[in-house]
């Protein structure tokens, strides 16, 4: 598929060392600037000559954007913190293990060493028609190549598709939604904080983007409130191979129980729609109920209400139903086998 074609086309590489400098550059260049975090999503675009930015802004030298800090309200994770660091951080493993688990399941060890939390939540979709440079809706055209009778759409959306049927590929996104994380975005006008679930947008809002980030915006940090520290967590990712692959679907849940009763709960899935979905209807339906097989089954059935399969992805409906069910009752943890 991928073909080696010499080095990438030339671009201007700017390497700021502070957020303020990065901000200035993004302001100055606007839509011409390509923000480079770990680079693993970016280099595919650049190497394949599908996107040709004239200016690349490499954030790897901005130390302010790295690291995990404990604050009065919980944790603050710099956007340029690597997935390996998150997966291995003692405090995250102890109190917010949902995030550590999701980070550990991303791609491969080398990619986790390089890939960042900011990049993981901001990466573009993997729909291959789009990534191969076909002039689809998402690329500014007026057709979807995946949603045709012969389109290859095994990995595509079953919910909330609107012209475009691509899905968000992030593993950490549903975990952050379940943990009620806040995303800190800076631009020339100042700083704004958005809820994790509002950071992502579907095609009904903007068909060319997966997040609210506009040119000039910089995601600087992810804040995790202490609200869900030490709750009962469940994360599961389903993919074709145990390494590298993006999720066919994943699920994340955080739950606070009192005895057997579900007091508080948040559930999110990704790989089902163009944005990671927080399942509010499911949460409302099971709050205050017994944590039982019956409740879990009801949750699973409710989660897939309104799902519309494409030609090759009908399997995603029972998959989502079962993942949501498991996220309520849990299953014996599958062990990693080589």
């Amino acid at each position, binding site marked *: 598929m*991928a073909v080696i074609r010499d080095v990438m086309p030339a671009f201007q590489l700017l390497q700021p060392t502070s957020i303020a400098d990065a901000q200035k550059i993004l302001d*100055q260049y606007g839509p011409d600037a390509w923000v480079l975090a770990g680079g693993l999503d970016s280099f595919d675009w650049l190497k394949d000559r599908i996107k040709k930015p004239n200016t690349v802004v490499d954030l790897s030298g901005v130390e302010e954007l790295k690291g995990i800090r404990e604050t009065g309200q919980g944790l603050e994770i710099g956007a340029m913190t690597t997935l390996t660091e998150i997966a291995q951080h003692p405090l995250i493993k102890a109190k917010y293990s949902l995030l550590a688990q999701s980070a550990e399941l991303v791609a491969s*060890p080398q990619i986790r060493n390089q890939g960042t939390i900011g990049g993981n939540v901001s990466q573009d979709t993997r729909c291959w028609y789009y990534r191969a440079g076909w002039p689809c809706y998402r690329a500014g055209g007026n057709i979807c190549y995946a949603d045709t009778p012969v389109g290859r759409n095994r990995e595509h959306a079953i919910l909330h598709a609107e012209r475009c049927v691509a899905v968000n590929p992030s593993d950490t996104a549903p975990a952050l939604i379940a943990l009620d994380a806040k995303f800190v975005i800076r631009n020339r006008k100042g700083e704004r904080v958005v809820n994790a679930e509002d950071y992502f947008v579907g095609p009904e809002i903007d068909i060319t983007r997966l997040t609210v980030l506009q040119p000039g915006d910089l995601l600087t940090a992810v804040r995790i409130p202490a609200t869900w520290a030490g709750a009962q967590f469940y994360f599961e990712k389903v993919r074709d191979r145990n390494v590298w692959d993006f999720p066919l679907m994943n699920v994340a849940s955080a739950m606070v129980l009192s005895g057997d009763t579900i007091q508080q709960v948040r559930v999110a899935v990704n790989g089902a729609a163009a944005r990671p979905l927080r399942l509010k209807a499911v949460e409302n339906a099971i709050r205050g109920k017994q944590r039982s097989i019956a409740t879990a089954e009801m949750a699973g059935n409710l989660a897939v209400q309104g799902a519309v399969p494409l030609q090759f992805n009908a399997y995603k409906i029972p998959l989502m139903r079962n993942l949501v069910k498991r996220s309520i009752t849990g299953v014996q943890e599958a062990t990693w086998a080589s």
Partner: protein
Amino acid sequence: MSEADKQVSETAAKRVSRRAFIKGVITSGVAVSSTSYLFRASTLAGQRSSAGLGERLITLNVNGQQRRVDVVKQETLAWTLRYKLGLTGTKLGCDRAECGSCTVLIDDVPYYACSVLTHTVRDKKVLTIEGLASPHGKLHPVQQGVVDEQGFQCAYCMPGFVMAAVGFLKTNPNPTRAELAHGISGNLCRCQDYDKILTAFMRGAEYMRRSSRA
């Protein structure tokens, strides 16, 4: 002057002028391309920010040596290592962070060299397969493990695999076979020789522990 002489001198003059002309073309060609380069650079300089554009001629710390090398901005580390520094032990398999054969250590951490811009490792230490053995040629314990257990078939993936294993064993010196498999799961072997590779690296890990005790 006779007619013949005149002809000879005319031909000579033509010859000279042709040579001069060709020389001229070469010189002006260089001039044109360099001016366009300078012009381009100055256009960019006009818009440049405080962060600056930086130098193309940089110093890299590779295998313990300071290497001066001319690197374009969009160049990947794998490209620089192989085609500028002649370190062809680092292999390019997919060039898309999907196979692991270009794995090198940057400050002791395994990275895919095909997906790292050389300009981002200016202040870091790069270690490739060529820098693993000691200067006198004594193999690294992991390399010795590979030799003793005959760990690979075609071995195209070996340099990347060995670097991934060395990086993993630095932080996990005493792994189980399953932990090691997970640690080097970012590398593919087209010969499907994983079992022997794991055996070789388990042996290498044992040698490493032994040599660190000694």
